[in-house]
């Protein structure tokens, strides 16, 4: 199986450690993972900001970059959500029949990390060791767009040494929403404050999630609040060993 790491532009530029963790984890599970350097950004930001036509070259590039890979795995539910639920609409609006076929095919091969581990590899115990108190925030795109259900929880529960604690109001949005955090920064800040409070109340040292974007937002809020809790991507928890 030829597996391509869909790194996402955010992880590529700002959170390279998450990318390293993805590679480490997948290699440990005997996945021959490759990083096609043709990839750039999936275009989600453009689509969600109302610039669908500017996303078109990015969508076409994504198709080219991952041509020939059997499975494409990403450390982001929202980027996978964009490929799966937005690409086809953009292609259809432009009556581009060939692109419609290409993105349908791409979408079938694209997985978020927990989906890839549980559904494709069929593992929940990835042999990780993480002796810390951790709480899990199901991001909106994991929960309601990809509907990854309890996959991440099952993966985390199998981690040796972990003390997994519940997050109250876990299913509430953290308030990131891409450019929403800038355009409606006050509302975003109010939502963030509530999420930060729930994380702090959980007593966890780490809050983990499937999306670096939401974690960047939550982490920025935790630091600003002077909390001792940190953010960590699901891939980083699962990549940790003794």
């Amino acid at each position, binding site marked *: 199986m030829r597996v391509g790491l869909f790194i996402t532009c955010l992880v590529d530029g700002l959170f*390279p450690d998450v990318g390293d963790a993805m590679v480490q984890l997948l290699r440990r599970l005997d996945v021959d993972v490759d990083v096609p350097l043709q990839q750039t950004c999936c275009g989600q930001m453009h689509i969600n900001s109302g610039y669908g036509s500017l996303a078109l070259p990015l969508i076409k590039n994504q198709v080219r970059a991952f041509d020939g890979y059997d499975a494409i795995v990403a450390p982001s539910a929202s980027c996978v959500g964009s490929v799966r639920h937005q690409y086809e609409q953009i292609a259809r609006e432009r009556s581009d029949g060939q692109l419609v076929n290409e993105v349908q095919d791409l979408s079938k091969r694209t997985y978020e990390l927990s989906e890839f581990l549980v559904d494709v590899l069929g593992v929940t115990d990835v042999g990780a060791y993480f002796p810390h108190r951790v709480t899990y925030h199901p991001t909106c795109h994991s929960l309601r767009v990809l509907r990854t259900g309890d996959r991440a929880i099952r993966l985390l529960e199998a981690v040796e040494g972990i003390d997994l604690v519940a997050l109250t109001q876990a299913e509430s949005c953290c308030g990131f929403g891409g450019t929403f955090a800038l355009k*409606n920064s006050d509302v975003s800040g109010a939502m963030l404050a509530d999420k930060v409070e729930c994380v702090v109340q959980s007593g966890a040292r780490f809050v983990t999630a499937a999306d670096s974007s939401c974690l960047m937002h939550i982490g920025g809020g935790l630091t600003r609040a002077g909390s001792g809790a940190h953010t960590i991507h699901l891939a980083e928890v699962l990549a940790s060993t003794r």
Partner: protein
Amino acid sequence: MTYLGIPGAPRGVGHLRGEEPFPDAAREALKNTQLRDNLRNATTSIRAKRAAVVAELPDWMELRAAGAAIKDDVLANLERYLLELEANVTRRGGVVHWARDANEANAIAVNLVLGTGAKEIVKVKSIATQEIGLNDALEVAGISAIETDLAELIVQLGHDWPSHILVPAIHRNRSEIRDIFLREMPDVDPELSNDPPALAEAARRHLRKKFLSAQVAVSGANFAIAETGTLAIVESEGNGRMCLTLPRTLITVMGIEKLLPRWRDLEVFLQLLPRSATGERMNPYTSMWTGAVEGQAFHLILLDNGRTATLADPNGRTALRCIRCSACLNVCPVYERVGGHAYGSVYPGPIGAVLSPQLTGIDDNASLPFASTLCGACLEVCPVAIDIPSMLVHLRGRAVEYRQQESRLPSGESVVMSSMSMAMGSPRRWNAALRFLPLSKKILAHRRVVKFLPGHLSGWTDFRELPTIPRESFRSKWQRQSKTQP
């Protein structure tokens, strides 16, 4: 996309537009901590009630699909069903009036009331009349309109605006309501407590006199059945019964999308609506009437006001499936923080963010499609499966298009978006762009710079720290390591 000049809701009348863009109105609303507490308590409790009664029905998803399909049939065959409704209402002695927009509907209603000589009318269940500003038009004609839904009455007596589709006074708590009653109800008990039964009793006494003396009632409609000409209202207080039966003249204002083709379609919607709206298995009062009854004249005003224009957009038209249950408001994290007034329209929350800009045209409500994190909670609870998140994204596109047409200079945002699309369009350019990251690390290392980031970017640092910029991008490290490895 070209729109064929179908008129939207006109400016200067009704309540579909705010005075300021959503982010500004929301910022003000957030300062009101009492409002946030009231909203949190109310939405949290109604969410739980809805979830419990929806979970009771094993065929909820099928009901939802049926609801969506019936409404899509209505929208696809609107003309036929409207004519069928008109024929059946007329056959049963009612008079049907067609109103292109708010101004026409108001003029028709005002003339009908003036014709009766009434100076005071009672109203029930009529967000459509709030949409068109009917009370204002009646007032100009010297007619006072009394709202009889408890929450509408609270809003009216408080000289205020509804902030929720179903619970218009959700922004008020019981102490505030007692204060309003003490101030505004002429013969209220001065010892009135803030106990809900006491408040309800005070409203009941106040309204009873109005019901018994009113000569004209104005209502909205939840449903209109094309095949029989029947109108239906669901409510919780019994005021609907009073308004529909006591006055000599009944005037109903309904949006043209409220139709259902057949009587039996009510089976689906009378399950979907109460469970989604109030979290009840069935609402206490369901009133249905067909045409005029002996001793009462009946007028039906069919309101367009931007609905046909909405229907013209294939990616926006399913917003017209909405049955005004407000489940999407109750689960929306944005609505929960800011309340309904920030949306500037009688239709707030997620459905308002897609409906209001379509009724008015995107130019007047351009900030609303951006008032969402696209978290998807609204789609999950919608009883007619309106894909609000995708529609928000579609309308964002229309808002951007509109802005580009209006201004000869590109906006800062569109410059950023174009350059990013350009940079990300090729791996070579993206590689080059990523090499600048360490430089931004140096710039951002100066806290003063971080504090005074330009424009929207300062919105980030108002509430959160920036992430630490890494020394090297993932791909650069990957390339370096691939070179050293065979």
